[in-house]
């Protein structure tokens, strides 16, 4: 299997879907002539032309709405936000229009569209450019929220998202674009709403999504050296959440740690803990712990930033704690 970067895997998905369906187009800031702020859309303008790969003014709310309007009359837009931090300007369109259109029209207007772009913290970008939005978006009925952690998942999930008739929020890890992995060639899809067991063990379950999947795998590797084998459940989508996959793992390991990039309060992890206590109360040998960003805006200074972020040492400490080893 060829090894691709996460970025190139996403581009393959976009390109293959643009070829497959002429109702699909990509719209966003700098996606065309500039070849994409993060180069995900590199080369696509040359191949598909300016009606399929569309540069927009810096108007997140406006072009998100343009995508929604076009989806109402049968196109299948992919709206790229340069980062999800800027997408906050468009949140009215995503939440009040895209997510609710089908419901408030009594089923008349599906929203076959994808909102995608980089999400999560990066390196020393400070408070406004370094944050994870999935718990906000996962709160909204009518949206699907996808958070791929590997190149192979990025491609298969993006293809599913584009083919889905619902509005899909697709959160790419900003720090994942250069990560590499084996990616199957050609057409394949990964169903939305299904988690993936990325590592198998019986000592503890680590639930993660997006960039934190890589951290969870590092944690698994480190713990394996100490003879501790953990399950790593990659949620892959955080709405819907694959409750069954989480429960199956926890019933086996009897312990769980939830790892996420976002803040603690009302985070995705809080929801996972709720599912675990409902599904697996009698199976638990210890309280479920969470590892997340500290409850502060992201600081700029390197040492403070490191302290704010969830990382492998914090996750290892949490696993040892739920195993009563620390």
């Amino acid at each position, binding site marked *: 299997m060829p090894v691709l970067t996460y970025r190139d895997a996403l581009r393959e998905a976009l390109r293959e879907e643009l070829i497959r369906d002429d109702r699909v187009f990509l719209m966003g800031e700098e996606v065309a002539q500039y070849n994409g702020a993060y180069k995900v859309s590199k080369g696509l303008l040359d191949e598909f032309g300016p009606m399929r790969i569309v540069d927009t003014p810096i108007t997140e709310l*406006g072009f998100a709405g343009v995508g929604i309007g076009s989806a109402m009359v049968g196109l299948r837009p992919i709206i790229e936000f340069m980062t999800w931090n800027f997408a906050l300007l468009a949140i009215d369109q995503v939440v009040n229009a895209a997510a609710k259109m089908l419901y408030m029209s009594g089923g008349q207007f*599906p929203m076959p569209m994808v909102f995608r772009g980089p999400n999560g913290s990066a390196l020393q970008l400070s408070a406004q450019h370094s944050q994870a939005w999935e718990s906000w978006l996962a709160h909204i009925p009518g949206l699907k929220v996808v958070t791929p952690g590997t190149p192979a998942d990025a491609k298969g999930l993006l293809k599913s998202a584009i083919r889905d008739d619902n509005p899909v929020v697709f959160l790419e890890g900003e720090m994942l674009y250069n990560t590499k992995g084996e990616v199957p060639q050609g057409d394949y899809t990964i169903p939305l709403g299904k988690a993936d067991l990325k590592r198998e063990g019986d000592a503890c379950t680590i639930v993660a999504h997006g960039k934190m999947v890589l951290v969870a795998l590092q944690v698994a590797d480190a713990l394996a050296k100490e003879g501790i084998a953990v399950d790593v459940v990659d949620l892959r989508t955080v709405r819907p959440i694959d409750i069954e996959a989480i429960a199956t793992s926890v019933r086996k390991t009897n312990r769980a740690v939830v790892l996420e990039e976002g803040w603690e309060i009302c985070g995705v992890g809080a929801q996972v803990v709720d599912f675990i206590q409902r599904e697996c109360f009698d199976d638990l040998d210890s309280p479920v712990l969470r590892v997340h960003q500290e409850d502060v805006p992201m600081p700029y200074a390197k040492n403070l930033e490191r302290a704010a972020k969830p990382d492998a040492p914090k996750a290892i400490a949490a696993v040892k704690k739920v195993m009563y080893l620390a």
Partner: protein
Amino acid sequence: MTTQVPPDTQTQAPSTASAGNNGQPADDQASLRKDLLRSMLIQRRFEERCAEAYALGKIGGFCHLYIGQEAISAGTMSMLRPDDYVVTSYRDHGQAIARGMSPRSVMAELFGRQDGCSGGKGGSMHLFDKSLNFLGGHGIVGGHVPLAAGVGWAIKYRGGDQVCVCFFGEAAVNIGAFHEALNMASLWKLPCVFIIENNRYGMGTEISRATANEDVTARGAAYRMPGESVDAQDVFAVRDAVGRALHLARTQRQPTLLEMRTYRFMGHSMSDAASGTYRTKEELEENMKRDPILVLREKMHAGGELPDGELKKMDDEAKAIAQDAWDFADKSPEPPLSELWEDVLVDTTS
């Protein structure tokens, strides 16, 4: 109920219907005037019943009536082709009916019943009818303006010659979404007609207290978008202006910004009085002298087109249609509880 005229009479350029010399025979002109009057009467009588139903608790939530503004909906819809698109705001009852939606399905929606156009899940502010390209019914001031640009984008993408007409109130011109949408519509040459229904009040705030430049058509100039200001109590002035804008949109993909100068005779919604805290009774009465139905009726009287008894007959028909809608809605069952969980997401195979 619809006042749409056949498509083949509408591809032509600027309508001069008010002068009666746009090539249509005189009897067609008379029948057009009758259709327009009928449309406005139906909207008026329908909404009067809405007010009554609201008072009786049959309609809940917010209920924004269109009374006084009917010439805009009747005039605009009469110029559109069936394959054109309409996107609008929460003051949408009259527009929905003028576009051809069944008063029964609209009233049932207002009553929150199963036979409503959105199955009772949208209500007053979210009327939709896909079969008529009526794309809602949106409740965030100005938030739907970019959607209209998106529909315009899709028309251009497919190479069609349809137009998307977007209605919103004058308060929406201060919203960022309005500016973002107009900029893109002009930049990309999208076939859109943006219609400001300037009734002078954004809820209870008079335009002079909210908008630095009351000449709202000037907002289009910032985006090189032509615009004009229209006496919207005259349905033929509406038709003329819309006709010019449609022609530009169809033939050149040139969007237009139209200001329809109108007045609402009711409060912002059923929760506030027609006059009182933010405008005087005198102001209201003065404006009601230019009721669009009266304006058209007088024109028809002057032309000898509305013999004695004819108006009453048309009005009785309108009242009967409103009564029929009420009876239908009242008999329609509440949506089954299973509907609560339907239409959140489309079932997909992926």
